């Protein structure tokens, strides 16, 4: 008799488990926005490059900051840049650097300034 009651409880438990698991596994998770965001980021990148290419004095290396108004055309946009800031990169000299000896710094205060005096 004890075995029959245990069997009954097990049967009920199995029914409940199968009911809950069918709800969990049958519901498909909806798609997210990953692909949409990636496409939009790509679009923004292309729009920006299109705008920046219109900057006339673009340096070979550096940084460009712009503010522009995008004007719709039949196909795409044209950009009216109303603010720009170009920072050319500091050129890197390729030279041999020697350690040892004195190396005089350029005195920002001028030749006769106190910082130019040497210690005796």
């Amino acid at each position, binding site marked *: *008799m*004890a075995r*029959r*009651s245990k069997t*009954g*409880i097990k*049967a*009920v438990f199995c*029914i*409940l488990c199968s*009911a809950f698991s069918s709800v969990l596994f049958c519901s498909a*998770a*909806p*798609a*997210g*926005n*990953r*692909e*949409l*965001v*990636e496409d*939009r*980021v790509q679009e*923004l*990148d292309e*729009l*920006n*490059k299109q*705008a*920046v*290419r219109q900057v006339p004095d*673009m*340096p*070979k*290396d*550096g*940084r*460009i*900051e*712009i*503010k*522009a*108004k*995008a*004007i*719709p055309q*039949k196909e795409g*946009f044209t*950009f009216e840049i109303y603010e720009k800031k170009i920072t050319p990169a500091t050129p890197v000299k390729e030279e041999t650097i020697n350690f040892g000896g004195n190396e005089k710094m350029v005195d920002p205060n001028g030749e006769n300034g106190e910082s130019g005096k040497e210690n005796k």
Partner: protein
Amino acid sequence: MRKWLIQMERMENPVKRISKALAVAVLLVPLLCTHGWAGNKKIMSTRAAKVLAERALVESIYGLKVRSAEEVIDMIPSSFVEKTETKTSARISGIKFEEIVYDEQKDIAKVTASVSLDSITNIDGQQMDLKNKVYRRVAFATSTPSQAGPLKALRAAEIDAYKQLVKRVVGFTLESQTTVENFILKSDAVKTKVLATIYLAELKDFGWDDSGNAFVKMYLNVKDVSEVLGEKVAGEDEIVEVEGAGAQADDFQQAKKGKGKGR
């Protein structure tokens, strides 16, 4: 011995009875509950869909204000932030509900509304001669939060479509920082902003793809706008068509939450 066995059997019976009752309850309760709530949900969902269809017509004819900003850093998708707000407020009389459909299983109502107006003053205060053209929009609604996913995605796609229409008709501002190396451009930060009103946008098509993302195709006949306003509008010969997209879940937010929990 026999008495003892009878006593044991009587003790086990309550357990058996309870188990049987529980099994029956598990099977019957969902059926009974669904049947009991269907009437109220149908009314609520249908009413909500009617209101949303009216809103859609107001947005189409009277117009709406669209404010949007998007920003991305180093072109990394997880850094992308976009926010679009829309606003409208008007009263249009004479709206007819051509078709009302209700899905009882999903608790989703679909309403098609239409209106035909002689003239209207739009969101910019301009008088528009509509010549009794029929404008038609569709809206969905539900009273069951678990069914709202596809409908939210559709609304997101609608708003995205309005934004794109504004960008294509009015334009937008762009601010950016870009690094140049050997004349090769690398976008560091890009930001776009839009603030404008739009009216007479019409719905061409809408739906959901296999992955559950929604799409909405809208168009604006610029020539019609010129005629309605009685003044020339730039790009007069054009029909501007755009496609908006909306998703049911934010993958990047979920990823960020997952990272946070891991710490």
